[in-house]
């Protein structure tokens, strides 16, 4: 039985901390939680300039999965996916983890062949993956049009049974409450405006609430890492791009799985509430805005109706968008940046939500020990200089 919990209380920052974490989204809160709980660091502050989970943490499509491509990243995403399972009981907060299964459609024979190769490398990493033919697919998703009618008919699919969804706001509050229980100060409305760097070592941060001394500073700012880069006089290998999400009318349950099409670049799921979340590609140009465009909405509507013809009269009723920091190789940047005591957990672009538990765990390990953990070894900033880009794909 879960105990009655005290309500979460935000704090005013103190004058000094062992670790200051910039960014009160999922990555920052998770890192704070693992630091406080497993590495015994007592004085930790999470500084958030708006409200917790205001950035990408609350603006994603709630998808968790491990069917990635690069062999460097697969064990990491696999661990992250497994960590979501036990997280509700660990955090004593229901994250509504629903491993509903993820279906990725293929629309041609070459694509199916590529998907088989992808599946094999995922199986080698121990991730459960099956291939489905259109007949099997129709049994799982009766509403799906597997006939020859669509311009790009369905040739088959990859089924990732452990993929699913987690309620993103629940995850934010779960981590925040757990952080507070372990003595982390969560300070909202505190904006970091600069870093104090003394002889190549970070000694604190300047904030809208005054100067805060810190032994170590961890940057987990989602879509805003370039701004941090300017404060410390560095450029990061990221461009900021908007991602738009739409949801439809609420309907009776008809779609039990997450359905994605890597080729057409759209994906959808029916939430517990009954609406469909329509995800798609990032905008095709660099942008720091927050908006929804007619073109993207129309694109998603066309694609969903192509494969779910019964949805022709369903309306898009709600939209949101968020900004993503994308690297050229679709992998994040973690670890150090050449300044002693300053660690990064940035550039998560399109795939940060599913990675939260593992990235929090390994960021915490890096902050506590100063050594790059094996599972995130390939995510360092140095990969851009020694020809070790991660061969990842975006969907």
């Amino acid at each position, binding site marked *: 039985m879960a105990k009655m919990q005290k309500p979460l209380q935000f704090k005013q920052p103190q004058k000094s901390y062992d670790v200051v974490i910039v960014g009160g989204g999922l990555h920052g809160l998770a890192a704070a939680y693992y630091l406080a709980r497993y590495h015994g660091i007592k004085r930790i502050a999470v500084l958030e300039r708006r409200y917790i989970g205001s950035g990408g943490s609350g603006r994603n499509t709630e998808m968790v999965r491990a069917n990635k491509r690069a062999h460097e990243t697969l064990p990491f995403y696999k661990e992250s996916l497994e960590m979501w399972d036990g997280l509700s009981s660990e955090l004593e907060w229901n994250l509504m983890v629903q491993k509903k299964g993820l279906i990725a459609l293929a629309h041609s024979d070459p694509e199916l062949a590529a998907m088989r190769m992808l599946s094999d490398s995922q199986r080698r990493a121990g991730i459960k993956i099956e291939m489905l033919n259109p007949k099997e697919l129709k049994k799982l998703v009766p509403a799906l049009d597997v006939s020859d009618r669509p311009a790009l008919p369905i040739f088959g699919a990859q089924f990732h049974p452990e993929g699913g969804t987690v309620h993103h706001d629940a995850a934010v509050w779960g981590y925040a409450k757990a952080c507070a229980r372990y003595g982390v100060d969560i300070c909202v409305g505190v904006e970091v405006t600069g870093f104090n760097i003394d002889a190549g070592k970070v000694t604190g941060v300047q904030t809208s609430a005054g100067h805060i001394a810190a032994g170590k500073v961890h940057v987990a700012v989602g879509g805003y890492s370039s701004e941090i880069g300017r404060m410390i006089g560095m450029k990061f290998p990221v*461009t900021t791009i908007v991602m738009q999400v739409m949801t439809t009318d609420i309907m009776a349950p008809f779609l039990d799985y997450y359905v994605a099409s890597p080729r057409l670049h759209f994906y959808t799921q029916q939430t517990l509430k009954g609406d469909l979340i329509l995800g798609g590609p990032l905008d095709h*140009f*660099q942008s720091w*805005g927050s908006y929804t*465009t007619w073109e993207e909405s129309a694109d998603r509507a066309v694609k969903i109706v192509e494969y779910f013809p019964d949805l022709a009269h369903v309306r898009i009723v709600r939209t949101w968008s968020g900004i993503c920091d994308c690297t050229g190789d679709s992998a994040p940047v973690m670890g150090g940046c050449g300044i002693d005591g300053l660690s990064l957990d940035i550039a998560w672009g399109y795939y940060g939500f599913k990675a939260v538990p593992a990235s929090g765990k390994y960021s915490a390990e890096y902050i506590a020990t100063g050594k790059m953990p094996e599972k995130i070894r390939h995510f360092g900033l140095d990969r851009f200089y020694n020809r070790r880009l991660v061969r990842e794909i975006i969907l």
Partner: protein
Amino acid sequence: MAFLIDCPNCGRRNPYEFKFGGECKRAPDEGADMRAWCDYLFLHDNMPGFQDEWWFHALGCKDWIKVRRNIATHEIRAIEETSP
């Protein structure tokens, strides 16, 4: 979001007709070391303000144009044709 790109050849057109080509950057000088080339290739200013950037009018004149756009507000200040 209302912003149109005033293509020098085709007039005011929807940005979805274009392919985005990224920030205009200055290539390192001849003889620069590998690190300078990696910086040039991978690092971006990514500043939420005005920047010079490349756009390719894929569904129009098939011309690369240089646009000075505020990437936070999408206000466009200048557009120039770049074809040789």
